[in-house]
């Protein structure tokens, strides 16, 4: 290691991640998809909800303005996929972030507190684990009147449990480390210790898990929209686009391939990124 500058472990891990070509390529591809989804629709003179009655079920001829053709209602497929991507990616990242933050804090508190508090908190998690997912989603959609909020709540509600369990195990072993004892001898409160020592030291584990959580959220959204509980027509999401595509699979494969392909690309990228992060954070490789 160069002696000129001191590097934190985080900086070292970041440097290792950057050396991983596949993961870095995935970051660029994913970035491109995100930019495309959020800026792309502005390039077209119509939105994904505008029907063009001159081109109904137009094929994918790569001709302006309907590059990938239109669906049965004359809506532009590409624009719909891009707009659906906005919804899916937003829910994916926001859901993973929210679930991750809740899970990390919950797990860190339980693991640091230990004893009775820990038992109580983790038994609660186990009970919630046992709750049937789909029923919960249906209940929440009734409660919030369906739509994005209910979907988001349901996804976060089920997905924060696993990070909580992972972080709790990590926090438990950290709580016994001597630097935590030193912090208590230094007069820090439990809250300060959790926030300055426990949580930052759990971050590497959680970042890896979080990058796998994003595809999980996107997939749950697709799954729920596919079941008809999630995002509703005419609003597009990758989930309901794929659902429509599947229905028309026999006659017109492109309705399935375009949104499905985008989803597959994003999921692959996220998995490669997760892989790269895991390798970069692996303590056995330090």
């Amino acid at each position, binding site marked *: 290691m160069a002696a000129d500058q001191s590097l934190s*472990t985080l900086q070292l891990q970041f440097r290792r991640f950057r050396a991983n070509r596949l993961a870095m390529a995935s970051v660029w591809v994913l970035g491109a998809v995100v930019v495309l989804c959020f800026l792309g629709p502005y390039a077209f003179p119509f939105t994904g909800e505008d029907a063009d009655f001159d081109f109904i079920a137009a094929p994918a001829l790569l001709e302006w303005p309907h590059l990938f053709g239109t669906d049965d209602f004359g809506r532009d497929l590409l624009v719909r996929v891009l707009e659906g991507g906005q919804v899916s990616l937003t829910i994916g990242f926001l859901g993973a972030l929210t679930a991750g933050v809740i899970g990390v804090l919950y797990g860190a508190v339980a693991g640091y507190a230990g*004893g009775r508090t820990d038992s109580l908190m983790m038994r609660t998690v186990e009970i919630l684990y046992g709750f049937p997912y789909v029923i919960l989603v249906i209940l929440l959609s009734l409660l919030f009147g369906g739509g994005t909020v209910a979907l988001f709540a349901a996804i976060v509600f089920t997905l924060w449990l696993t990070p909580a369990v992972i972080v709790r195990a990590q926090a438990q072993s950290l709580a016994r480390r001597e630097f935590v004892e030193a*912090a208590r001898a*230094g*007069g820090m409160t439990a809250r300060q210790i959790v926030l300055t020592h426990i949580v930052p030291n759990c971050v590497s584990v959680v970042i890896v898990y979080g990058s796998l959580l994003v595809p999980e959220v996107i997939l749950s959204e697709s799954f729920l929209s596919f079941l008809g509980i999630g995002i509703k027509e005419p609003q597009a999401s990758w989930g309901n686009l794929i659902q429509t595509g599947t229905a028309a699979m026999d006659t017109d494969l492109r309705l399935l391939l375009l949104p499905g392909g985008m989803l597959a690309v994003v999921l692959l990228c996220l998995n490669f990124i997760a892989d790269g992060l895991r390798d970069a954070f692996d303590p056995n490789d330090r």
Partner: protein
Amino acid sequence: MTLLEAKHLEVGYPVAGAGVFSRSVTLPIVRDVSLALEPGRTLGVVGESGCGKSTLGRGLLRLIAPTGGQVLWQGQDMAAMAPEVLRQRRAEMQIIFQDPVAALDPRLTLGRIISRPLATFEPGLSTSDVRARVMEALQRVGLSEDYASRYPHELSGGQAQRVGIARAIIGRPKMIVCDEPVSALDVSIQAQVVNLLMDLQDQLGLALVFISHNLAVVRHISHQVMVMCLGRVVETAPRDAFYARPLHPYSRALMDAVPEPDPRREKGRIGTALPGELPSALNPPKGCVFATRCPLVQERCRTERPELRDFPGGRHAACHYVEA
């Protein structure tokens, strides 16, 4: 005034009871320990692994709440202090650890690690004052100022222990509990760290509780020596008297177990290891804690626990039969 006083201190950990729903029971690791420490003095605590030395150190600082007895800090009962008051007074009583690298948070720079206690103990300090105090602490432990921006994984064990000491002294403590501070270090580094602690004791008037299983190191640094066996004190004595002639058979066994540096003299000594089983802490012997392994054991030792008796020269030993 006596700086730190423990009266019949008992420290234990909860262990799960037998059944799923049975209450957890407390397993006492340290039993009935009384001691007093004057400012600027060093108490050496020795004993074999698992005898409760480290637990005693944490009990004295109330890092583990004692399950019985009292700890008085400058005459005040620590159990009676409000949590907020105790947090502030922790500035006066610090600890350094056996594994010096594990005692430093790997994600923080050394400057932040060393300065962190000041945020609690002296929250009014300006950034430049904090910086000056960090530099002063670094300089006192013999590290250059540019260490402040480094990270723990760049340090050797000896350097990490110096950083631990710097963190301990930054709040200007009156006492430091040293929990096996040199046992994880190379022999060549051990002497440096011990001498550093002794220099700091002179400069800052620190009292030290020096926990170790290394009798040679304890001899070097201590004024008073306390020997523990299975959570109980079996002997206390001034340093020179203790090393001239330990009274308790357990202390003698500890002395005999020290390897001889001269291989020719070491040769004939094999076989001085204690026979007998180390009793389980869960089920300690009814009588003397050393009865199962003592070479001088009598019937009375197995049934009746010897109290600490006074011996001439300010010594105490817990044995029925030993004579001064």
